[in-house]
């Protein structure tokens, strides 16, 4: 069976899945709207976790939480299921397809055959939609891809039961109940307030304070870890910022797009101004990535310590800018 499902490419997988599932159910919502209402924007440093042998920095909220918050705020209900048994997981997926219900899936990236080899790491919080099954082949709408694709039963089982951090355990999710009309206005305000609270949180590893913390660490790395490791760490920070599809400035631009759309919807000119400001902040994140790449491009860089200080200063400037920004944003709504 094949469900008539409209695939639309997105910058980020989770927003994309939600936006596409909503559109399928008759509620057209843009990707930035999902991201903004779900309070996807964040900065956090997770000191006790290492991925690819480097510390983890995240520029967005925990996987799965964007949809949960979005659903709660606009008034839809979602059903989530995880499985310990691959067979049950498959049966449940097939049942949903049988009922013409496309479902969102959390999967691991490492065994996704259509991903470029270089992008296949053990990252388990990727999202896609399965919208049909033809001759034992699952039809897949992966929002970071330009067009739809497909996976065999075995391939799909492998990615659904990837292991490690954020192991998906066959996780499926889909909306089950909708209000007559989405409560967008209220939801936008809640979403913005939440993001401001997160970014200004008095926690040393979250938000603006988290950016400052990382800047401080970057200054120390060349001495405490050696140039080689420091380069590796710095590279990972940029890779997280520029995850697939967030191209330069990453999530900041998606957020700026959200503020613009929200400003129009709420007829709030302050938000339109702040959208422009967020775009400029995004540009500065891009500059940071460019400067950082100058360091790790040259693996044996003698003057590197100064360069590290330089990129750390860029980050501190960004922290100051974002602090002012989110204080203004809090007052604007």
């Amino acid at each position: 069976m094949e469900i008539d499902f409209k695939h639309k490419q997105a910058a980020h997988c989770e927003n994309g899945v939600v936006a596409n599932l909503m559109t399928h159910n008759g509620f057209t919502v843009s990707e930035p709207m999902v991201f903004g209402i779900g309070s996807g924007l964040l900065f956090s440093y997770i000191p006790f976790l290492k991925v690819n042998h480097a510390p983890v920095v995240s520029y967005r909220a925990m996987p799965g939480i964007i949809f949960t918050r979005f659903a709660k705020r606009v008034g839809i209900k979602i059903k989530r299921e995880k499985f310990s048994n691959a067979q049950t997981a498959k049966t449940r997926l097939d049942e949903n397809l049988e009922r013409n219900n496309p479902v969102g899936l959390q999967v691991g990236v490492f065994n996704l055959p259509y991903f470029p080899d270089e992008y296949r790491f053990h990252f388990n919080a990727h999202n896609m939609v399965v919208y049909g099954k033809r001759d034992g082949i699952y039809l897949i709408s992966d929002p970071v891809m330009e067009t739809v694709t497909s996976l065999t039963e075995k391939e799909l089982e492998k990615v659904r039961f990837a292991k490690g951090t954020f192991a998906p355990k066959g996780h499926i999710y889909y909306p089950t109940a909708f209000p007559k009309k989405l409560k967008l206005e209220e939801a936008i305000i809640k979403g913005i307030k939440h993001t401001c609270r997160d970014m200004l949180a008095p926690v040393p590893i979250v938000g603006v304070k988290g950016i400052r913390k990382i800047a401080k660490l970057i200054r120390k790395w060349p001495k405490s870890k050696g140039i080689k490791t420091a380069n590796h760490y710095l590279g990972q920070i940029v890779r997280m910022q520029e995850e697939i599809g967030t191209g330069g400035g990453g999530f900041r631009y998606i957020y700026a797009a959200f503020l613009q759309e929200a400003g129009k919807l709420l007829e709030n000119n302050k938000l339109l101004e702040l959208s422009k400001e967020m775009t400029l902040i995004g540009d500065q994140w891009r500059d940071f990535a460019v400067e950082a790449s100058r360091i790790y491009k040259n693996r044996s860089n003698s003057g590197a310590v100064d360069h590290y200080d330089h990129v750390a200063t860029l980050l501190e400037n960004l922290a100051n800018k974002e602090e002012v920004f989110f204080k203004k944003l809090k007052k604007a709504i």
Partner: protein
Amino acid sequence: MKKNEVPQDKSNLESANFKELCYAVDENGEYTTELSTGWDPKTIALNNAIEAINERISDSKQRVKDQKVSPLEYYMELHKMDLPILASYVGIWKWRVKRHFRPAIFKKLNKKTLQKYAEVFDITIDELQRTDL
């Protein structure tokens, strides 16, 4: 970022005929989307990460040859895994997996355990036991 500034650098995405979607503003300041073929700062970071992995793989290969570790460690690196990831794939405690990295202990492993590892790495037990990598 303006729409015409969306980076169109050469990257590893090209081989897979893959383009990323980016948000950028058009000439009227309105947000829109544009496809990107890649961006150098990102590509360099990714290439460095891959280089680091390849280094880990070849280091491990040497250690296997020198009989300092069992081939398990090599296959773990080859699959871009670390100890916690490998342990969760085989369903064996981390400290035991770590012990299996010792050649003497690896040699004494029973078929059942070896089979678990072989399945994860998608190879046969014979291949898993070979030290001439």
